[in-house]
Each structure stands twice: as C-alpha cells, then as structure tokens.
C-alpha cells in the first residue's frame, strides 16, 4: 500500500463571524496516499473547500496537525509555507485566477521565476507545461483571448511547472461547460496515471468522481464516509446519480433495483 503523502489529524477550523464562532471543520482525520486521485465531496457548507485550503497551506487550522510527505507543516512560518507551496504543491482555483496582464506563458512560468531560474530555463519549463495541457499554441495569448477552459488549463500548467508532488483543485470544473469539464478531468487522470501526481479535488458533481480512486464525503465539518473506486448508478425512481456503495437496493422478481433514498425505494415498491 502506498504511503500517505498528506495526513490530517483532528483538524479543526473555526471562523469568527462578528462575535460568533462558526465551526467549519470539527476534527477531521484523513490521509491521502501517494499517487492517489481523491475527490472531496459534500453539500454546500460541509467544509470541503476549507479542508482543501488547510491541506494546501492556504489557510491555518484552529487546531490539529497536517503532515505533508512526513513533514509537520502545522507550525510553519508564512515564509516557510510560501516556499512549500512554491516547491511542492500545486493549486488550482475554481475561478481560473490567472493574472490578466500576463500571457499564458508568463502566467505559467511565474512560479519558476520565483524559484530563481534563469530566463531560458523558466521559458522552456513554461512551454513544456503548456504543451502538457495542450496549450502550447496559445502561449502568447492574454487571458482575455482565451476561453474559460483554456484559462483553466493555463492555471493547471502554472500549478505543474515546478513539478509538485501533490495537486489540489477546488471545484476546477464548476465554471466550465460539460465538454471542457470532461477534458479537464481527463487531464487530471492522465497526470495522475502518467506522472504519478497525487490529486485532491473538491467537487460537487457525482459524475466527476467516476474516475477517482476515492471519495471523501463531508457533512457538517466531518468526514461521514469514504468511498473507494465508486461506481455511479442511476436511481430507478427519480433518476438521480447515486454511488453504488451508498445506494438503497430492493429485489423484485429476482432482479435488484437501485435507489438513492428510502423514499424512492418505498415509492417504487408502492407502484
């Protein structure tokens, strides 16, 4: 079994809204294994984005500890975290978040410039990263000249340029049409399979999880269940998507029927 590349122990996050404390994560224990492709799912407000921010060192937990590649990153200074993000992590935002004044190539090679590489090095790396996401021919275009899917590809190239061990993605397909979404998810799978990149992705689309290794389900700031290699089925009553592991089943005349909830199952039986 591959070793854990990311580990979170009793991770809590409490936001202070005025005078009220709002718990976002209530003590999450999770590990992500090397080379794994993990989806983090849950309803709005479940804490999935908060968990991703904490694991990607974009935010600081209220308590608990995070280990990345065996290093306890919980007490790192801002400079150390910044250096860690630069050299070992890649992060992809929901809203592309590339800089409007830079071309695709310039956006891509920013992290390599930060590493102090010389111009020929960072330009070469930038081009390679863009090629990897099939954006080589759009290198000199400004974001305003690119579609949403293309901009997201540029942000993926930027996340990959420093060859991170782990890629975090926060609903990377939320603002994309289905064709672009499919293409981005397949790209993640390709990077995961071919480069051995560990991918942790927040999504709210069950469809997106078809190609992941595991799904971490969150509810009210806690992981409620972990589904391995999920198979997605359709509820035979309301036709919504449902994981095979969590589906409700009824057998009638020797045939097994799948439902998303007890209500749907009962409705089916009453028919």
């Amino acid at each position, binding site marked *: 079994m591959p070793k854990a590349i990311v580990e979170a122990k009793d991770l809590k996050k409490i936001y202070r809204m005025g005078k009220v404390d709002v718990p976002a994560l209530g003590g999450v224990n999770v590990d992500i294994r090397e080379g794994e492709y993990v989806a983090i799912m849950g309803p709005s407000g479940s804490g999935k984005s908060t968990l991703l*921010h904490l694991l990607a060192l*974009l935010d600081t937990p209220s308590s608990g500890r995070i280990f990345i590649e065996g290093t306890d990153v919980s007490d790192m200074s801002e*400079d150390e975290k910044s250096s860690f993000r*630069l050299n070992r992590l890649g992060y992809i935002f929901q809203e592309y*978040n590339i800089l409007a004044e830079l071309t695709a190539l310039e956006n891509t090679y920013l992290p390599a410039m*930060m590493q102090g590489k010389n111009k020929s090095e960072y330009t070469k790396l930038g081009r390679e990263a863009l090629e990897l996401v099939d954006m080589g021919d759009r290198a000199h275009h400004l974001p305003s000249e690119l579609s949403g899917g293309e901009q997201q590809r540029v942000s993926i190239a930027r996340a990959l340029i420093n060859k991170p061990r782990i890629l975090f993605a926060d609903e990377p397909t939320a603002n994309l049409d289905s064709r672009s979404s499919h293409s981005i998810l397949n790209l993640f799978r390709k990077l995961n399979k071919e480069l051995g990149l560990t991918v942790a992705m927040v999504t709210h689309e069950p469809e997106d999880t078809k190609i992941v290794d595991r799904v971490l389900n969150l509810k009210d700031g806690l992981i409620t269940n972990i589904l391995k290699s999920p198979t997605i089925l359709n509820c035979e009553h309301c036709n919504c998507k449902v994981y095979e592991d969590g589906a409700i089943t009824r057998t009638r005349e020797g045939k097994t029927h799948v439902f998303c909830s007890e209500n749907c199952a009962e409705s089916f039986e009453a028919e």
Partner: protein
Amino acid sequence: MKGNLRLSFFLAVKNTLHQKPLFALIVLIITLSFVSATIVSATILGFVNALNNQIIDYSHGSILIEPKEDAIFIDDALEKLDKIRRVPGVIAATRRYSFGAALFKKDREAAGFGFFGIDPLEEKKVSKVYRYMKQGEYLTPKDRGEIIIGSEVAGGGEQLWFAEEDTLSARVGDKIRVSFANGVEREFHTKGIFNPRDIYSTSFSYITIQDAEEILGVSGKASLIAVRVPKGTESYYVKRFKELGINDVFKTWEDKLSTSAIVISMFGTINILLSTVGLFIVFVTVFVIIYINLAHKRRQIGILKAIGINEKVITQSYTIQSMIYGASGIIAGVILIKAMTAYWAVHPLNTSLGFVTPELSASSIIIASIMLFISSIIGGYIPSFKAAKEDIIKLIWD
C-alpha cells in the same frame, strides 16, 4: 535575491503597462500635484527676483557709491567715474545729484521718494527707466527746465501706493513747481511721465544734471555714483574700486533692499508656509491615489501568495510600481513646469508689482521631487505590505 528583484520588476512593469489609462491618470494627477507644489514657490521666487531686479534696473544700479559720512557730495566725481569705467567688466557708471524736494501743480502737492539730477545718456546705460515712458519723452542732455515724473507722483490712476488726491495729477506739458530743500524754487515743464511698474522708481522725478548743478551751485561733483556690473559680481568690483583709491561709501543693491527686504522676507515666509502645506497635500494625494489603486489589487495579491510568491516579492513589486508612477509624474511635472517658466520668461506675468517671471530654483524642484517620490514609495509600500501579510483566503474571496 536577484531573482526576486527581477520577478518584482517583471510584475511591476507588466501591471503598469496593462493598465495604460489608469497609469496615465495617476501620472497626470502626480504631475499636477508636482506643478501645484512648485508653482507657488516659482511665482514667489519670481516676485523676489523681480523686486531685486527692480532695485538694480530702475533705481540704484548694481553698486551705489555715496559720499563719506561727513560729506554732502562725492568730490572729483568725474575723475572717479573715469576710473570706474576703465575697470574691465564694468557695464556702465553714472553720477546723480539727489535732492530733497516737494512738487506742486497749481493747488496740488506731491512728495516723491527721490528727486535726481541725471546725465540722460549715461543714465540710460545704468537704468532702464527710459524704456517705460508712459507719456512724453525721456530727458536729453540738451534739456533745460524739463522734468520727467514717475507715475506714482504724476497720478493718473496707475499708482500702487498713492491715492489720486495725493498726486500732482500731471500730464505732459504741465508746469510743475519744485521747492528744493536748499530754499530754491524752480518751475519745470513736464517732458514725460514714466511707469516701469516697479515699487521704487515710479515715485522718482528726474531733471538734467546741468539744471541740478545750477540749483545746487556745484560742478563736477555727485550725490551718488551708480554702477552697473554683472549680477553676483558686486563684491568683487567694490574691492576693485577701493583698490583704485576710491574711498567713498559703497553699497550694493542688496544693502539697499530696505523696504523691499520686508516684502521679500514676507514673501519668503509665505513661500515656506505655502510650500510646506502644498507638499503635504501632494504627499497625501499621491499616497491616497496609490493606496486606493492597490486596494483593488487584493485578489491579485492573494493569487500570487497562493502560488508561492512570497510577501517580500509582492511588496517589492507594488512598491516598484508606485515608484514608476512617482518617477513618471515627477519627470512629466518637471517638463511641464520648465515649459511654463520658459513661456513666462518670454511673456512675464503682468502684476501690480511689475512684470514677474516665475522661476524655479533647483532646490524647490529637488525638494518637491523627493517628497513626491517618498510619498509614492510609502503609498505603494504600506498597502502592499499590509495586503501581503493578510490571509490568502481573505484576499481572494473577501
């Protein structure tokens, strides 16, 4: 370190060039701030210089030689003038008789600040009064019984100091009776009225040196010798004249400032006050503009932090950007103010104190430039430093 600075410059330049209209607007505001901070100082310096030049050009000349304390006249004035004129670099020298006199026209009386007997040809080389004849003509060496009067004494509505009822209300051709301090009374024909629009000579009156010697009963003497030398060389020539054995009393135009010294000193105080307030306003304006501009870049700062660009590079980048704004504004400001002063050099401002050419001293340009540049740096540094210290989540999503 080198890489970090290169990245900071890269981001600063890209950011600046991407927002050309905003860049142009900020530079315009800084340019106008620079002009507003320096224009008052330039105008006041212009006033001070105008007042100084008025002393030289219309009344005292560069150096004024007066009789020794116990003497009424300078003896051997013609011989001394000859010696002075022979000194290389001396532009001109002339002798004058100075009188205490009251002027009358019918029932009107006026007392000027100076009544002089002059050598019209030599006087023209020292004083520029002849260029500003408002009515009539300047004196000639052949004139006898002719007088030219400054507009402050003559009246006619252009006076700066005197009310019309305190003037002679004289016109060219009028008979003017003059009562001298030695008891002599003479009637003169008004040949001209002059108005160089300065605060000194407009209250002077001139007659020819021949008339003056006749009234005083002297010959070949002088009450004053006025010398014109290049500005700034006065002390050198005073020393040279003393070496020639001229042992009368020497006063440079700066020694004779008296009334104008009060005005100049007042201007100096106003200048310091206005410049200080002006520069403070500029400081705040530039700071606020850059601060507000950077407040809109919070999300961008958050993205940079998220991808591993450290706080130092981010702060450096926005500070450099502010420095680009500041430097561009200063350069444009210097060009604009230089163009304005060049225009004024040809077309001086027509003020009640005379023609004034606003001038910018190097020190006021340097002070304004430094203040603006510092405010640009602070205006860029503080907000970017604060933003770079904030949580990434707040920067991107708040």
